[in-house]
Each structure stands twice: as structure tokens, then as C-alpha cells.
């Protein structure tokens, strides 16, 4: 049911002139994907610096709260550009992407990373006054930072893996993978 609805939406996108134009363009798609990769340096770069501080590995002499607050703005700018370019990349190749197991894992990891970031921020704000200047933050904050690094590394891994056709729907796949990838119309994903 959900898979059918997602495929219908993808096919609706795929039929639009802008989607076809982007998919067939020589430079536009490449420029958008390059921008998407460059935001890795901005968004994830800032996020990694904050998480490493929360783990007490770098900037131990700087208040963790101050560092997170100062790097927040460029990180959010990077995130917004990354989401916009990411959606455009999906829009350019919607049918294959919708039926990609890697894309689906990536979306799940993105949601997990988002929930973790929300909880992390909430817990940090609740207790920051007790450890802001500590070289090494408390264990629950360190665990949150590790989860963040694991989720975002997973997002990079699965994002890159979308380009590979190892588990594409037109290949012989176990039933579970076919279901998880949402393989309804294998020919549409080739």
C-alpha cells in the first residue's frame, strides 16, 4: 500500500518536464550533486567538530556550549542546502531512488539522526550549566555524540551506495529485500 503510493508519487515526479530535464542535463545534475557533496564539508564538518568536542577529544579548553552555539549557524546553513540539493537529486531520478534499499535506509538514518539531535539538544540544555566548561562532558552527552557520528556516517555510506546497483529491483533479490526496497515495478527502476 505505502510502497504503491510512494511509487505512484515517484512516477508522477518522473513524468514532469523539470525532472526529465534535470536527469538528462549534462551540467545541471552534476552541479547539484557537487553542491550536495560540498555541503558535506560544511554541515557534517561542523557537526563532527561539535561531536568531537562533546566527546572531549578537541577544544577541551573551550566551553562545549559556546562551541556548539557558535557553530550552529553555519551547520544549519549547510543542512538546509544539503536537504534542498538532496531533494532535487531525488526529483531527477525518482523511480529508481524510491525503489532503492539504500535510499530507504538513508531516510531511516536521517530520521534517527534528527530524533537523536532533538533529544541531544534537549538533554544538553537541561544539564549544560553543570558541565559546560568540563573538558569531558558527562556520559549521556558523550553517548549522544557517538550516536550522532554513527548515524551521519551511515547516512554518508548509504547515500553513496545508492549509486551502486547491487540490490536494484531488476536483480534477483530475496523476498525480504524486495519488500524492504519496495520493488513493485522492477522494469521502472532499471
Amino acid at each position, binding site marked *: 500500500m505505502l510502497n504503491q503510493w510512494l511509487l505512484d508519487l515517484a512516477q508522477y515526479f518522473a513524468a514532469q518536464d523539470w525532472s526529465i530535464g534535470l536527469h538528462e542535463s549534462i551540467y545541471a545534475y*552534476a552541479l547539484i*550533486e*557537487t553542491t550536495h*557533496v*560540498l555541503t*558535506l*564539508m*560544511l554541515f*557534517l*564538518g*561542523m*557537526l*563532527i*567538530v561539535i561531536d*568531537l568536542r562533546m566527546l572531549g577529544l*578537541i*577544544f577541551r*579548553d*573551550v566551553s562545549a556550549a*559556546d*562551541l556548539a552555539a*557558535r*557553530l550552529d549557524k*553555519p551547520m544549519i546553513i549547510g543542512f538546509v542546502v544539503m536537504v534542498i540539493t538532496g531533494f532535487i537529486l531525488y526529483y531527477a531520478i525518482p523511480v529508481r531512488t524510491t525503489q532503492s534499499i539504500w535510499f530507504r535506509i538513508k531516510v531511516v538514518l536521517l530520521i534517527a539522526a534528527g530524533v537523536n539531535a532533538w533529544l541531544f539538544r534537549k538533554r544538553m540544555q537541561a544539564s549544560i550549566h553543570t558541565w559546560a566548561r568540563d573538558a569531558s562532558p558527562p556520559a549521556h552527552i558523550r553517548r549522544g555524540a557517538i550516536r550522532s557520528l554513527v548515524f551521519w*556516517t551511515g547516512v*554518508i*555510506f548509504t547515500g*553513496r*551506495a545508492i549509486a*551502486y546497483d*547491487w540490490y536494484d529491483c531488476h536483480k534477483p533479490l530475496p523476498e525480504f529485500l524486495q519488500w524492504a526496497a519496495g520493488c513493485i515495478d522492477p522494469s521502472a527502476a532499471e
Partner: protein
Amino acid sequence: MDLLPFFTWLDTSLLADLSKAYGGVFAVVQMFHLVSLAVLGGMVLVADLRLLGVLLTDVPLTLVLRETRRGFDLALLALVISGVFMSSAVAMKLYYNQMYWVKMIALLVGVLFVYFIRRPLLGETPEQLRPVTRHLIALSSMTTWFTVAASGRWIGFS
């Protein structure tokens, strides 16, 4: 200097056998390459935006430069190691790829710039440098590493 003999050797090396035979290993190394790029990007941007007076202005410049140095060095090392492995899989194709050479030249410029110009120039007391010099160092650095990352992605399209 023609590097064709080196690429011919690389194309038939043990590394190439490994990277060509195991597509999964190649993909995993490629993903580590991207993670290293993110770490390098973070270190470069934090340090350079501080040099420009845009970010972390209330943190001493010397401290920011010191704290980002080790992460940069490790990320660069990981990028080069994973990059050599990836290159071995398609060595001959890369030798004739114009964008690959743009990336290699930008990378060489970046490495020389960091270790022979930027670090000696900033030295122990970067605050004493004129602001215009600090800004020029930051802009050159960001432009170079931006070119390395962008041309790297463009290799796949050309």
C-alpha cells in the same frame, strides 16, 4: 614528466587486483574517502573562518589553529590512502581524465600551501600577522580545498 609508467604499473599492481576484484571493498573505501572529506572540511572551515574573523571570534586564534591541526592531518592522510586505493581500480581511465588532474594539482597545491606557507607563516603568534595577510591565507586555503572537493566529485561526470 610523464606519469604514464606509474599509472600503468598501478593498473596492474596488487592494489588494483584487490580494488577491481572486490567491488564492495572499493565502495566502502570510497565512503571512508567521503567521511574523511567531511572531517577535513570541518577542520579547514573552522580554522579559516576564524582567521577571517567570522567564527569563534571569542576563542583565541592560536587555540583554534592548534585544535584543528591534528584532525586536518589525520583526515588528509586518510583521504590520500583511500584515494590511492580508489585510483588503482581505474588507473588508466584516470590518467586520461582531465578533472582528475585538476584535483591532483589542487591537492598538491593544497598540501604545499598548508605545510610550507600557511603553517610557517602563521607560526606561534598568528595574532601578530596583519589582518589582510590572515584573510588572504584563509581565502586561499578555502578556495584550494573547495577545488579539491568539487573536482573530485566531477571526476565521475567527465
